[in-house]
């Protein structure tokens, strides 16, 4: 085998070329890690958003989108009275009628943003157990409460959404009563307000869904209830299942991020080909000399791959550091909610694998081309 030091020192032959290759590798790794972090964040958030104990009663035919769902106002009361096995907290049954409404909100600084507003009653806290009020109080009439990541979704600074400030919904002022947390769920980017206020503002007579938290009851009981009360036109769906479907709905978005990352990585590999063609081509005679001394082609090939791998892995390291700095805890918002990017072990693994692939795939064609000429011809070059 050729000494490892040979591969290392070859890196410094052309510092500009090294810098270009490093930057290219780092950029691709950063991009792949970004795609991975986004997808993992989206998947994790959507998976965490649904509770396995909760069943959503949606309007029949609207199982795909709670925003389009229309459920009779009476449904919550009837479900509360009829369903067995519903969780009870301090004599209150965990049945929460809710309205989901995408609305334009005027922020305290005058800017207008589109956000997800959920109309709720106090019972929402019985069904959505991840929700805890961090600051202020639960909203009553004329009030709103925001998730702790809503500022990102609404395009303002966190300071702009302090309790006591006023937000306009359809020109009606609402006082911010509190800030809540719901770790790892899409709810953290929502605005919650009194159910009746939102019903009025949204000019609707129905609610979007009734969320039921089951304690001892079975999902089947809810399905039987929905079948028995055909007049209510209900379609029950597990809350977890609903968000899983939503995650599936975003599959094309995830695919697009991967396709974009792969396309850019491919372009980078071709750019790497050019760089390495130039790097290796200038050493055809030197490589032939090594073979003339007695080194096998395979030994030379391994050395060239080592050289390429070192550059790409250094690039991967640089890309990983950049990813940690630029991506960690970065918030990305989509219509469904806000996702927090996390550079975890799987993201780092994706980065390293990308570096390895760039190193090997990028080196092989230039190396083969460099080793292709016969020894006498290469020595004459």
């Amino acid at each position: 085998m050729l000494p490892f030091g040979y591969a290392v020192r070859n890196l410094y032959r052309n510092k500009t070329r090294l810098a270009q290759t490093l930057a290219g590798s780092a950029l691709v790794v950063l991009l792949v890690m970004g795609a991975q972090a986004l997808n993992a964040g989206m998947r994790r958030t959507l998976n965490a958003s649904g509770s396995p104990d909760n069943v959503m009663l949606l309007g029949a035919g609207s199982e795909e989108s709670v925003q389009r769902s229309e459920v009779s106002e009476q449904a919550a009361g009837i479900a509360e009275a009829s369903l067995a096995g519903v969780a009870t907290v301090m004599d209150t049954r965990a049945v929460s009628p809710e309205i989901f409404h995408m609305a334009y909100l005027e922020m305290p600084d005058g800017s207008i943003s589109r956000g997800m507003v959920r109309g709720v009653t106090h019972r929402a806290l019985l069904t959505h157990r991840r929700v805890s009020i961090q600051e202020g109080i639960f909203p009553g009439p004329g009030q709103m409460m925001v998730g702790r990541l809503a500022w990102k979704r609404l395009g303002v600074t966190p300071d702009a959404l302090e309790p006591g400030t006023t937000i306009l919904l359809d020109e009606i002022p609402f006082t911010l009563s509190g800030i809540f947390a719901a770790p790892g769920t899409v709810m953290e980017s929502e605005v919650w307000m009194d159910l009746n206020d939102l019903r009025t503002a949204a000019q609707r007579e129905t609610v979007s869904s009734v969320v039921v938290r089951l304690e001892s009851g079975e999902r089947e009981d809810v399905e039987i209830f929905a079948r028995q009360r055909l007049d209510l036109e209900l379609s029950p769906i597990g809350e977890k299942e609903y968000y899983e479907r939503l995650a599936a709905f975003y599959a094309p978005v995830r695919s697009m991020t991967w396709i974009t990352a792969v396309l850019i990585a491919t372009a980078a590999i071709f750019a790497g080909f050019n760089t390495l063609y130039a790097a290796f081509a200038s050493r055809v005679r030197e490589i032939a000399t090594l073979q003339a001394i007695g080194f096998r082609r395979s030994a030379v090939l391994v050395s060239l791959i080592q050289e390429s791998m070192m550059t790409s892995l250094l690039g991967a390291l640089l890309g990983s550091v950049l990813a940690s700095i630029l991506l960690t805890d970065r918030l990305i918002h989509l219509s469904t909610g806000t996702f927090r990017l996390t550079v975890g072990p799987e993201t780092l693994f994706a980065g390293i694998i990308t570096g390895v692939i760039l190193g090997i795939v990028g080196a092989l064609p230039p190396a083969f081309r460099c080793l292709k000429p016969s020894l006498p011809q290469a020595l004459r070059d």
Partner: protein
Amino acid sequence: MSTSNDILVRCRGVTKQYKKGETLVTPLESLDLDVPRGDFLAMMGPSGSGKTTLLNLLSGIDQPTSGTIEFDGMEIQDLPRRKLAGWRARHVGYIFQLYHLVPVLTAFENVELPLLLDDMSRRDRRERVEAALSLVGLADRVHHYPRELSGGQEQRVAIARALVADPALLVADEPTGDLDREAADAILGLLQTLVREQHKTVVMVTHDPRAADAAMRILHLEKGRLQEAAV
């Protein structure tokens, strides 16, 4: 008269042909040659006469189209490429006109390269490299990179590299072609010393009659055939 044991390299009916576009080129045709052990043979001839081709065939860098090449009694012309690489490492040291040193390695590391192919301890390698560099008069340039050496010094490093693995045969392709007279004389003197004191066999290609005069024998090649031999 040389006995068969005295012959290090024996070529019989060696022909080399290759295609250049549609044309079949024959740089060597039915060549017979014996190179005795301890010989210092200079090969001269005009460009395209087949000198370098013959050198490449003798050193296992290239293989003949037909004919046999025996090295120390073993036929090498049909060895597969992998085995030929190992054979070269053990038996042949190649000296190039333009030295062909690896620019990112020091003189020591360049000379050490052939020894990395053997299972040899680091200490043994160091001893042999230092001995080879001393032999060529560069003991004080061990840690210099090629760019820090003169042409003559680079060629000495190349010679040290060629002989460090103690091969029986040294082949040199225009070893003085890129050097001034003084440096060229020094290199030729060194090759003579290697033949005389280290009992190496040297086959050298040269255009320079003065360089050829340093050899024990001179062969002339023309159009792929040996024309005459002078002693």
